[in-house]
């Protein structure tokens, strides 16, 4: 176990940022802390780095109690959301910084430092930019320098705070792939914070879904997506259709009777049902209960809005399927649900 977190609590005045959080980070894994703003994910990351103090709880880094240690002593690498590169130093000096400030006894020779820095710059593909200043680099390049700088001190753990948040969509996608590959090459235990569920699901070995200072679920991307533990997780991890219903004898029914879903019988009474747009099937039907109210074609996908006796639903399918079905706005259709989740309504 690379990182063991137990009972970490953090308050900012009256605001509770973290509420007795427990988490284990496995050695060598790439873990995502996923959640909306205010979920506490960044606070948790900063506590791991030593940039914030926890009010109570325990943090073990590789078996050693770390809460009393300064950031310096923890040997973690931290990559800031806005890079925090030293603006008056060249790329080379930025990456070399952690090596140059070591106490004399532990410091490498200048040649050795140079070798290590250039090796890292090669790794992040910025060897030709060694003499540039941060202001002369693009956002994606700066982020790679920040990463190289953090790796230079040979940290046992790498922490990244919304590493791609400040970049535009295309660069973000490229860097995601690149980070995944890097992690596969060097196998350093890494934790990154993001609010982008697509990013978390694509990149991480395991995903920690957080909300309001608490962990909602921990699992592999497939697990949290297919078997969400709570309504929050379900809603946060993708598009949803949701509607109120009542469960009697294992069957959830909407108030207008238009939809019924079989449940596993563990819930009874008022409930909320969730259906992913992809799991909503449509077929043309002259007397069908549903009516197509709108069709939006977005690239290769089609989104179809359906009005089902007062319920507004959205189905998603690829364009070919849509043309195969031959549905148009105003047509009547039948709706069937491939998969749904029902949670009790609080």
């Amino acid at each position, binding site marked *: 176990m690379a990182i063991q977190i137990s009972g970490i609590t953090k308050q900012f005045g009256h605001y509770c940022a973290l509420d007795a959080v427990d988490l284990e980070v496995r050695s060598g894994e790439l873990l995502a802390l996923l959640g909306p703003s205010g979920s506490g994910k960044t606070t948790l990351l900063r506590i791991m*780095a*030593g*940039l914030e103090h926890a009010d109570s709880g325990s943090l073990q880094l590789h078996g050693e109690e770390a809460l009393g240690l*300064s*950031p*310096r002593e923890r040997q*973690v*690498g*931290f990559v*800031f959301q*806005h890079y*925090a*590169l*030293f*603006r*008056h*130093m060249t790329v080379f000096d930025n990456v070399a*910084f*952690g090596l140059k*400030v*070591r106490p004399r006894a532990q410091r490498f020779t200048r040649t050795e430092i140079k070798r290590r820095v250039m090796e890292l710059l090669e790794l992040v593909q910025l060897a030709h930019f060694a003499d540039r200043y941060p202001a002369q680099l693009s956002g994606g390049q700066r982020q790679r320098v920040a990463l190289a*700088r*953090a790796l*230079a*001190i040979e940290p046992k753990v790498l922490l990244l705070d919304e590493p791609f948040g400040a970049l535009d969509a295309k660069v973000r996608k490229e860097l995601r792939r690149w980070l995944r590959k890097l992690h596969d090459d060097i196998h350093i235990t890494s934790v990154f914070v993001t609010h982008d569920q697509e990013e978390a699901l694509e990149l991480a070995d395991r995903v920690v879904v957080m909300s309001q200072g608490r962990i909602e679920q921990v699992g592999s991307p497939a697990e949290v997506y297919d078997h969400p533990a709570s309504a929050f997780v379900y809603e946060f991890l993708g598009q949803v259709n949701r509607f109120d219903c009542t469960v009697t004898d294992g069957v959830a029914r909407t108030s207008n009777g238009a939809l019924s879903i079989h449940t596993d019988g563990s819930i009874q009474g008022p409930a909320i049902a969730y259906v992913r747009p992809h799991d909503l099937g449509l077929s043309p039907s002259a007397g069908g209960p549903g009516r197509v109210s709108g069709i939006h074609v977005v690239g290769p996908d089609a989104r179809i809005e359906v009005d089902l006796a007062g319920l507004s639903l959205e189905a998603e399918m690829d364009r070919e399927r849509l043309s195969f079905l031959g549905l148009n706005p105003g047509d009547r259709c039948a709706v069937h649900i491939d998969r749904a989740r029902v949670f009790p309504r609080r």
Partner: protein
Amino acid sequence: MPVKKGGQPPALAEGLWIRALLIAVSLGFLLLFLVLPLISVFVEALSRGVEAYWDALVEPDAVAAIQLTLIVAAIAVPANLLFGVAASWCIAKFDFRGKNLLITLIDLPFSVSPVISGLIYVLMFGAHGLFGPFLKSQGIQIIFAVPGLVLATIFVTFPFVARELIPLMQEQGSEEEEAALVLGASGWQTFWRVTLPNIKWGLLYGVLLCNARAMGEFGAVSVVSGHIRGETNTMPLHVEILYNEYNFVAAFSVASVLAMLALVTLVAKTVLEWRFGAELAAARH
């Protein structure tokens, strides 16, 4: 502040005559109140020729005054530099109660008359002051001696560096320092290698202003000085003595040196603003 032409849409400019009039009025006003006094200093200084000018400057009392001015500045400016850096570090990097009060206190000398700035030290250390008898018994002389001059000068000039650095450091934030700490740097290493390079131009600017004021201060040092020729007269005080003795050429000669210092300060200030305006602009608001 380097002139940045503002957002007036060209199509809506005032008529040519109005513009010309306003420009003429401003230039006339500035000519009368700024340029004329400045020129008159040099004209009067040289009115009896270069020799008389030079004589006034090498005269022993004048030399002593110049030396004293330099010594006082050499003590006051570094002390205030240290203060400015310490104060802005603790104000910009930390959150604590009473921060606004502290900032107001730092601005205090600007709202106090220079005479009062000198008065308070006389009331503390003068013969009839709070510590007067004690100092006398110890044979320590503060008022009417160099230490008093230094204290009064430090008082009137200590805000300059702090006022430049505080907004600058607040704007720059603490992320780079946090990054340095995580990378293993100690507090001192972080300050020297990361913070200092980022604030160096603001620092220089503050030191420049601090120095100009320290060398030119009159009211405060006049009160604590005792006007002892050759001993407790800085250049501005020496100018006063010469002028009151109707020794106009000598007075203006020494004054011209101070005026040149002022011009050099203005030039350096302008150069710094041009080249590092963006960084310093943070300090403006």
